[in-house]
C-alpha cells in the first residue's frame, strides 16, 4: 500500500520542494488522488469502528464528526458534546466529503496519544534512533528529531488500523527493544503512552526472544547459563535495592498531607529541609566514622578537674562538655593504635608480646583529610544538584504564552483538602484577573511622572534597607568587641579570685551566661529585621509578584551575609589571633562552642518566632480582630533561616565535628514544629509561587554564599591560622595544613618505596601552582558550560521562531491541500460513492 507510506513529515526539505515548485503540484495532487483511492478502497474492507455514525445517512455526506478511530465507538454517549463540537468546528462550514474527513482525522496532530498504531510506530522510530545513536555519535539531525518527536513519526500509515501492518510494526518495535540495553528498554517502556497490559505484552515478547528462549532449550552451555543466572540475580538485587531506597523516603505521609493542604510552594520548604537533613547526615556519618569513633575508643585518661554539671552547659556547650569528642580540643595528636591499651603514647615500644597486629590511625591526618574530603564531596553534590535543577526549571522562558500556561498548568493536582481546593481556585481566579488586567495595561503604557515616583519610592526603600542592614552589622561588630573585652576582664578576675571556691563557681556561671549574650543579640536581629524589610516592601509597587519575592530574598540574604561576615571576623580575627588574651587553652574549642551556641539560640528563636509570629498572631486576629484570615507561611524567610543555620553548621564542622549531629536534631525537631504550626495556624499563601524556579534559587543560595563562604573560611583557618599549641590534633604545628606534610616526611624516611606518594603530595597539595591551575580549569569549565548553555538557548529560540514560521506556512498548506483534496474527490465522486454505499450495506 503505497499511500500508507506517505508521511505528513515536517521535513524542511520536503516543504521547500512543495512550496517552491508550483509546477510539481500536479505530481502532488496525483499522489493525493492515489491516497484517496486507497482510502476509499480501504473502506471496502469494512472497518466498522471507523465508520462515522452520520455516514449511515447518505444525503449527509458532509460528515461533521472528526473523531479518531478508537474514539468513535463511544461517540454515541457523547452526543451532546458532539452537537456543540459541530457548531464550533470551523471546518464544518465547508462541506467536506467523508474521505477528506477520514484523511483529516488520521492526520498526525489528531492521532497523538490516541491510536495504538501511531504510538507503536512512533516508538519504533525512537528505538531505532536509540540503537543508531549507540553506534555513532549523535548528529545534529538525530538530536533535532528527538527534541521534537511528536511532530515526526506519527505516520498516517499505521493508523488505518490494518491488523497485520500493526503487528509487523510491533514486531519491529520488539526487535528494536531487544537491541537496547536493559535500562534503556525499561525507560522506553515506561515512557510509552500505552496501557499497562500492552506494555507488559511488549515487554514479555522483548524478554522472551532474548532471555526466555535459551533457558527453555536444553543445549545451553553451562557458561551462558551461569551468565544468565548472574544477570537475573543482579537484576533482582538491583530491584530490591531500588525498593529499599524507596522505602527510605522520609516523611512520605506528612509531606503528602502538607502538599494536599498547602500546595507545591509550601512543600518546597519542607523538601529543602529534607535536603539539608541529608547533607548533615552525610557529614555526621563521615565525621562519626573517621573521627569520633576512633577517638571515642581511644579515650585518654579523664582529666582530673571534674566540673559540676549545672544544666547551663547544654546551652553554652562549655563546662564539662569542653573536653569531649564534641569539640576539637579533645582529639589526640598521636597515631592511635588498636590492640594495645596503652600504646597511645608514641614512646612506648609497640611490638610488645601479646599484642595482635595493630591498626594504626593517624589522627591529625584523619582530621585534616576527613574535613577536606567531606567539604569536597558536599561541593560536588551541591554543584550537581544545582545544575540539574537549573536544567529543569529554566527552560526557554518566554514572556509569551503566559495566560495559556496559567490556565493549563496552574492547577496543583496534589491538593486534596476541600477548603484548600476552594482557596486554590480563588487564587487562580484572582491571578487570571490580574493577568487580564496586565494584558490590558500593557497596551496602555505609563506616564513618565508615574514611573519617576515609583523609582523614587524604590530608591527610598533600598536606602532604608541598606542603612538598617549596615546598622545591624555595625551593632554586631561593636557588641562583639564589647563582649570580648568584657570576657577578658571577667577571665582575669576569676583567675585572681582563685581562693574562695563558692564565689569562683558563681563567677564562672556568670561568665558562661554572658557568653550567651552575643548569640541572643544576633538571633533577635535576625528575627526582627525581616519584619522591617517586609514593612518597607509594603510601600513599594512591583509589576509582578515574583520580583517582589526576589527583592525580599535579596535583602534578607544581605543581612545574613553581613552578620556572618562580622562574626567570622570576630572568631578568626579576634579570638584566634590572640587566644592568650582570654587565657584560652584551646581557641578552636571556644569557637566551636560559640557556633554551638549560635546554632542552639537560633533554633530557640525560630521556635519562639513560630510561636509568637504564627500562633499568637492567629489567636489575636481571630479572637480580637474577629477576622477569619490566618497568617500566611512565609516560605522565603523560613528557607533563608534554614540556609543561615546550615552555614553555621558548615562553619563549625572543623571546630566541632559533632555539630552536624546537633543540626540533625534541630532539623528533625524543626520539621515537626513547623508542620504542626503550619497545620494549626496558617493558610495557603495567596501569592503565586513558582516552586521549581524558587527551589533552584534556594539551592543556588545554599551553594553560593552559604557553602562557599563556609568553605573559604574553613580553608583560610586550615592554611594560615596557627592552631593551639596545647590541645587538638594539630598541636605543635604552625598550621593545620602542616599535618599532611609532616606525615609525608615520616613516610619518606620510614618507607622509601612510597616516595612517589610524597612527590604527589608535594606537587598536588602543597604547591599553590597546582591549586591555581586546577581552580582555573574548573572556572574555565564552568565558563564554557555557561557559554554552551547560552548558545543552546539562542539556538532554541531561533528554532522556535523557525517552527512558528514553518507551522503557520504548514497550516496554510494544510488548508490548501484539503481544499484540493476535496475538489479531486468531488470529481471522482460517483464511483467512490458506490463502493461507499456497498461497504455501508455490508456493515449493517
Amino acid at each position: 500500500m503505497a499511500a500508507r507510506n506517505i508521511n505528513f513529515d515536517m521535513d524542511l526539505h520536503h516543504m521547500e520542494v512543495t512550496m517552491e515548485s508550483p509546477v510539481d503540484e500536479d505530481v502532488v495532487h496525483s499522489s493525493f488522488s492515489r491516497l484517496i483511492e486507497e482510502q476509499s478502497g480501504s473502506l471496502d474492507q469494512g472497518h466498522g469502528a471507523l465508520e462515522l455514525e452520520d455516514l449511515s445517512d447518505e444525503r449527509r455526506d458532509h460528515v461533521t464528526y472528526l473523531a479518531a478511530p478508537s474514539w468513535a465507538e463511544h461517540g454515541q454517549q457523547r452526543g451532546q458534546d458532539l452537537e456543540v463540537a459541530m457548531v464550533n468546528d470551523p471546518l464544518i462550514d465547508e462541506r467536506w466529503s467523508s474521505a477528506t474527513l477520514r484523511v483529516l482525522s488520521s492526520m498526525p496532530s489528531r492521532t497523538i496519544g490516541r491510536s495504538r498504531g501511531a504510538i507503536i510506530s512512533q516508538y519504533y522510530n525512537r528505538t531505532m534512533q536509540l540503537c543508531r545513536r549507540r553506534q555513532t555519535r549523535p548528529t545534529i539531525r538525530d538530536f533535532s528529531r528527538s527534541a521534537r518527536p511528536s511532530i515526526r513519526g506519527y505516520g498516517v500509515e499505521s493508523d488505518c488500523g490494518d491488523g497485520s501492518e500493526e503487528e509487523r510494526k510491533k514486531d519491529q518495535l520488539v526487535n528494536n527493544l531487544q537491541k537496547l540495553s536493559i535500562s534503556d528498554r525499561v525507560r522506553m517502556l515506561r515512557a510509552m503512552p500505552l496501557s499497562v497490559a500492552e506494555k507488559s505484552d511488549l515487554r514479555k515478547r522483548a524478554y522472551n526472544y532474548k532471555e526466555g528462549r535459551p533457558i527453555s532449550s536444553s543445549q545451553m552451555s553451562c557458561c551462558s547459563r551461569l551468565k544468565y543466572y548472574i544477570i537475573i540475580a543482579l537484576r533482582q538485587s538491583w530491584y530490591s535495592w531500588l525498593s529499599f531506597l524507596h522505602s527510605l523516603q522520609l516523611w512520605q505521609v506528612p509531606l503528602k498531607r502538607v502538599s494536599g493542604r498547602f500546595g507545591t510552594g509550601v512543600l518546597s520548604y519542607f523538601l529543602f529541609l529534607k535536603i539539608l537533613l541529608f547533607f548533615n547526615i552525610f557529614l555526621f556519618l563521615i565525621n562519626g566514622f573517621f573521627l569520633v569513633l576512633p577517638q571515642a575508643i581511644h579515650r585518654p585518661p579523664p582529666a582530673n578537674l571534674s566540673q559540676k554539671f549545672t544544666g547551663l552547659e547544654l546551652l553554652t556547650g562549655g563546662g564539662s562538655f569542653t573536653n569531649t569528642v564534641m569539640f576539637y580540643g579533645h582529639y589526640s595528636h598521636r597515631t592511635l593504635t588498636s590492640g594495645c591499651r596503652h600504646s597511645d603514647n608514641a614512646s612506648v615500644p609497640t611490638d610488645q608480646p601479646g599484642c595482635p597486629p595493630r591498626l594504626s590511625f593517624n589522627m591529625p591526618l584523619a582530621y585534616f583529610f576527613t574535613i577536606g574530603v567531606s567539604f569536597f564531596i558536599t561541593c560536588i553534590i551541591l554543584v550537581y544538584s544545582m545544575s540539574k535543577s537549573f536544567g529543569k526549571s529554566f527552560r526557554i522562558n518566554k514572556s509569551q504564552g503566559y495566560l495559556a500556561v496559567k490556565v493549563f498548568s496552574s492547577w496543583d493536582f496534589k491538593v486534596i483538602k476541600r477548603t484548600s481546593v476552594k482557596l486554590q481556585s480563588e487564587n487562580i481566579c484572582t491571578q487570571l484577573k490580574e493577568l487580564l488586567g496586565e494584558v490590558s495595561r500593557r497596551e496602555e503604557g505609563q506616564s513618565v511622572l508615574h514611573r519617576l515616583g515609583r523609582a523614587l519610592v524604590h530608591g527610598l526603600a533600598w536606602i532604608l534597607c541598606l542603612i538598617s542592614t549596615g546598622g545591624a552589622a555595625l551593632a554586631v561588630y561593636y557588641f562583639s568587641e564589647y563582649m570580648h573585652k568584657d570576657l577578658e576582664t571577667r577571665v582575669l578576675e576569676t583567675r585572681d579570685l582563685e581562693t574562695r571556691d563558692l564565689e569562683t563557681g558563681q563567677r564562672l556561671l556568670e561568665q558562661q551566661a554572658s557568653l550567651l549574650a552575643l548569640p541572643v543579640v544576633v538571633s533577635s536581629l535576625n528575627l526582627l529585621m525581616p519584619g522591617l524589610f517586609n514593612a518597607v516592601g509594603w510601600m513599594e509597587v512591583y509589576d509582578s509578584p515574583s520580583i517582589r519575592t526576589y527583592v525580599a530574598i535579596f535583602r534578607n540574604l544581605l543581612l545574613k551575609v553581613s552578620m556572618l561576615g562580622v562574626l567570622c571576623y570576630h572568631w578568626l580575627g579576634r579570638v584566634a589571633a590572640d587566644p592568650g588574651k582570654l587565657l584560652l587553652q584551646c581557641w578552636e574549642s571556644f569557637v566551636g562552642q560559640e557556633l554551638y551556641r549560635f546554632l542552639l539560640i537560633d533554633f530557640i528563636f525560630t521556635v519562639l518566632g513560630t510561636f509568637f509570629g504564627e500562633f499568637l498572631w492567629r489567636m489575636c486576629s481571630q479572637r480580637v480582630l474577629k477576622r477569619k484570615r490566618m497568617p500566611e507561611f512565609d516560605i522565603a524567610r523560613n528557607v533563608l533561616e534554614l540556609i543561615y543555620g546550615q552555614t553555621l553548621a558548615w562553619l563549625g564542622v572543623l571546630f566541632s565535628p559533632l555539630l552536624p549531629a546537633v543540626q540533625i536534631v534541630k532539623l528533625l525537631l524543626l520539621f515537626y514544629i513547623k508542620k504542626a504550626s503550619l497545620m494549626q495556624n496558617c493558610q495557603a499563601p495567596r501569592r503565586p509561587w513558582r516552586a521549581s524556579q524558587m527551589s533552584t534559587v534556594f539551592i543556588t543560595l545554599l551553594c553560593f554564599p552559604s557553602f562557599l563562604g563556609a568553605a573559604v573560611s574553613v580553608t583560610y583557618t586550615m592554611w594560615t591560622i596557627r592552631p593551639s599549641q596545647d590541645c587538638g590534633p594539630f598541636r605543635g604545628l604552625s598550621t593545620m595544613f602542616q599535618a599532611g606534610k609532616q606525615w609525608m616526611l615520616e613516610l619518606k624516611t620510614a618507607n622509601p618505596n612510597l616516595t612517589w606518594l610524597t612527590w604527589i603530595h608535594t606537587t598536588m597539595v602543597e604547591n599553590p601552582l597546582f591549586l591555581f591551575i586546577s581552580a582555573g580549569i574548573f572556572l574555565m569549565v564552568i565558563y564554557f558550560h555557561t557559554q554552551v548553555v547560552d548558545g543552546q538557548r539562542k539556538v532554541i529560540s531561533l528554532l522556535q521562531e523557525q517552527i512558528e514560521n514553518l507551522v503557520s506556512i504548514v497550516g496554510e498548506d494544510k488548508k490548501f491541500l484539503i481544499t484540493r483534496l476535496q475538489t479531486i474527490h468531488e470529481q471522482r465522486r460517483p464511483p467512490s460513492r458506490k463502493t461507499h454505499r456497498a461497504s455501508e450495506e455490508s456493515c449493517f
Partner: protein
Amino acid sequence: MGNKQTIFTDEQLDAYQDCTFFTRKEILRLHGRYHELAPHLVPMDYTEEPDVKLPLALIVNMPELKENPFRNRIVESFSEDGLGNLSFNDFVDMFSVLSEMAPRELKAIYAFKIYDFNVDNYICKEDLEKTLNKLTREELTAEEVNLVCEKSIEEADLDGDNKLSFADFENMIARAPDFLSTFHIRI
C-alpha cells in the same frame, strides 16, 4: 513477604516494575487501595489476571481525587472504554502517569486528553471554557472567560486554526517548568 506471593506472581510484579514508575511495594499498596474501593468485587488473588473493572463513581471517591475538579476527566482518560471504568491495570497506569517520575512528554499527552473534554483531539474554545469554569468554580464572568479563552488560544496556537492541537499544547507546556510538579498526585 509470603503475603505478596498470593496477590501477584513475581513475573507480574517484574512486569509492573518495568512498565510503570512504581516499585513492587507500591504496586502492592496500589492493589490494596484498589481492593479497598470495592472489597467484594476486587479479588485478593491477581495471579490469574481477573477481568474486574470498577466504575467511575467508585474511583472518583478516592480522597486523592475527590476534590479535584477534573476528577471525571482524569478517570475517563485512563479508562479503556472512555467511560471511566478502570481495571486494575488502568488504575496503575493512571497513578504511574501522575507520579513524580513520569517524564514531561507522557504527562503532557495525558494532560491533553484530560483537558480535551469533547474528545475531538483538539482543545477548542469550548474545552477551554469548561476548563476555566472548573478551575475557578465559575467565579469569572462570561466576558472574562471569553477574553481568557481568546487570549490563551492566541498565545498558544501556532498554526492559526484557532484551536490547540497536541503539538501546540506540548510546545506551551514545555515553557511551564511547574507543570511537572503540579501534574502530580501523591498516592
